[in-house]
């Protein structure tokens, strides 16, 4: 073949295949970005960080008016409705508040949130690392990238009842945590350190949500009682410190004495800080009652 023909054929093929890939991605639209996402139920199978980032642009604002913002210990809480608000769980396993801020900022321009549950947890404020290039993510990625293809293939297999791995996030953002029972997992010494940048991000996030009309409630997740007892002064000191520096809002502390029975039951936990499905269900039910009460009482 001549060089001229070779060039034309090569460029035409690249453009055609890239276009075809983009067309498929737009048609499948696993993140609800390219067509109206209202009423859709989008499940994520992999890359939950990226997915929640993109889902927050249109899918979350179109279908939810409440958020849970937290790390892995709140990721498997399933609270579909609190005080009439439909809740999307934006919790990111291993996530810092810096990452949460990036994700939630996607959801703010088009969303109206009545209620936001902010989890007060040391890993949220101990660093401001950004994983998986979350801060550089662009919409064009959804036209063909590893995370889109992976989710599309997993979704197609799921539709054909071939389920070789768990979903990473249900349509309401709830994440299924791996079940590896480890109730003697110690708390590392640097667990309670507070990163000033992360704390600033936390404050900005709360103020930004509040300025858009959201009621904020802080929730402190329950820790397995034997571990909590060992670290109680450190936990209390951490809570005291961050509450001094964060905007005031009602707080629900699930490490209070009234929940000792719950925290002492090993069946409620996967490990010392992550709740097993049974424990997560109990906490979710509790929140449905406690959050409206806290908002009403202002404490």
């Amino acid at each position, binding site marked *: 073949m001549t060089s001229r023909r070779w060039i034309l054929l090569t460029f035409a093929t690249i453009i055609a295949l890239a276009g075809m890939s983009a067309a498929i991605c737009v048609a499948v639209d696993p993140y609800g970005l390219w067509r109206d996402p209202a009423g859709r139920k989008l499940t994520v199978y*992999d890359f939950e960080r990226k997915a929640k980032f993109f889902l927050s642009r249109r899918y979350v604002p179109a279908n939810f008016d409440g958020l849970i913002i937290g790390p892995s210990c709140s990721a498997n809480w399933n609270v579909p409705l609190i005080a009439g608000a439909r809740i999307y769980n934006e919790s990111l396993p291993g996530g810092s508040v810096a990452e949460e801020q990036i994700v939630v900022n996607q959801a703010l321009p088009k969303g109206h949130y009545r209620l936001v549950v902010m989890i007060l947890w040391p890993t949220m404020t101990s660093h401001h690392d950004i994983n998986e290039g979350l801060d550089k993510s662009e919409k064009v990625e959804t036209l063909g990238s590893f995370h889109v293809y992976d989710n599309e293939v997993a979704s197609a297999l799921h539709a054909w009842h071939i389920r070789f791995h768990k979903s990473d996030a249900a349509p309401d953002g709830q994440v299924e945590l791996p079940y590896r029972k480890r109730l003697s997992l110690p708390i590392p010494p640097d667990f309670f350190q507070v990163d000033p940048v992360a704390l600033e991000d936390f404050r900005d996030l709360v103020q930004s949500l509040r300025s858009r009309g959201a009621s904020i409630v802080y929730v402190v997740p329950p820790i397995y009682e034997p571990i909590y007892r060992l670290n109680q002064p450190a936990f209390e000191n951490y809570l005291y410190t961050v509450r001094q520096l964060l905007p005031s809002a009602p707080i629900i502390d699930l490490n209070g004495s009234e929940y000792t029975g719950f925290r002492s039951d090993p069946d409620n936990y996967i490990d010392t800080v992550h709740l097993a499905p049974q424990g997560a269900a109990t906490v979710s039910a509790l929140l449905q009652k406690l959050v409206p009460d806290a908002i009403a009482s202002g404490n």
Partner: protein
Amino acid sequence: MNFNTFNYILLFLPIVFIACNLARRLPVPKAPQICILLASTVFYSWFKPSHIAYLLGSIVVNWQIARLIGNAAQPWRKHYLKAGLVLNLGFLCTFKYVNFFLSNIPYSVHHHFRAPEFAFPLGISFFTLTQIMYLVDCYEELLPPSSLFDHATFVSFFPYVISGPISRAKRILHQFPSLNGDVGPSADTLARATYLFTLGLIKKVVFADAFSKAADYGFGNVGNLSAFEAWCFASAFALQMYFDFSGYSDMAIASALFLGIEVPRNFDGPFRATSIIEFWKRWHITLTSFITTYIYTPLLQSFRRATLATSAVATLIAMTLAGLWHGPNWTFVVFGAIHGTGLAVNQYWRKKKMPDMSKPVGWLLTFALVDIAFVFFRSPNLQTAGLFFSRLFGWPQPLGIDNLHKMNGVGPMFAVLALSQFAGTVAVACRKSSDQLAREFKPTWSNYAATAAYALIAFLYLNSNVARPFLYFAF
């Protein structure tokens, strides 16, 4: 703007290509060259607009010195050359080395005299060397001083201004008349450029970035590496460097080819070398050529007699300076000294006609030496390099692969990275170099399928937001 971005691939390069070809039809003399000079200015300014002043200032000063050299007689020619060299080295030192030198002279001096830290202009190490070569070549009357327009186009040419290949003026300037001619590059050249560009792109975004993930993990966990892992991670960094820099060079050469300019090749399958001398004939070829012509040879000539000993000293000095050229850190000095020592021993071995090593043994020793030198290159300081070095030689744990399991993370990206690393290793071991492949390029069906596949795979990696900037941008 990096070569491995959609902005460059889909916008900048096509626009410059089209503009240059349209410019050929304009009744304006040298219109394509004007286009390229403008494009180069935009390209350079993209990173930090204020730094264009340094580049343009350096161009104007060197052009003027070259004119003075060209018009003067001895001994003034030599004085002008010396002034030019001092100015260029001073310019480089001001931005890169002043505080390094100050921090290494007696304690009290360092604490009392500290120059402000300047953010050094991108590509300063490269365009300064280019202009030193230009001045020396003018002095030696290998080429006449060029016009300011030609000199500015030559120095600021966007494919190589940031990270090379380091090009000599006489090789580039004589191509300008054809650049400004009525006919653009042939379809054969454009097809070859397309092929080479996709090879470079895949080297960078698929192979280099996958090895970078492994190397970053290894160098971030030096404290708990086994000897086996330490060698694997050192090799991963060597391969990252190779794919990163040779990928960049391929894209630079291809970008220039699209405009009808041939720039020199920079790599020729260095990891197939069976001696350290051969390695440097294949690795960063344009820097090797600079070191040989402009540092090693004058040094050797400055000795009264050329002997094995003086040659070894000249080699050691030249390579140590080449190491330091990479940056103001003792780790780079040691990197250069290791290579200098390796080259000197290799020269001695050859001159004394000592028994030839079998090729596999030669390859293994060369690869090991390169890996060890790269440990210093990659480490942030000598302490970390020393710790890594102790790990390489089995202290305290010779075997163990826990870190190799963890280096690629978990989930689907584990498979993507592992596959990319495997493919990269195979590419280094079995394939011809991209330069050879491009030289032997024919517009066949297999090359068509390969090019389309490479481009699509590279785009997939690029669009997945896993691409990283080029390593040599830091120098």
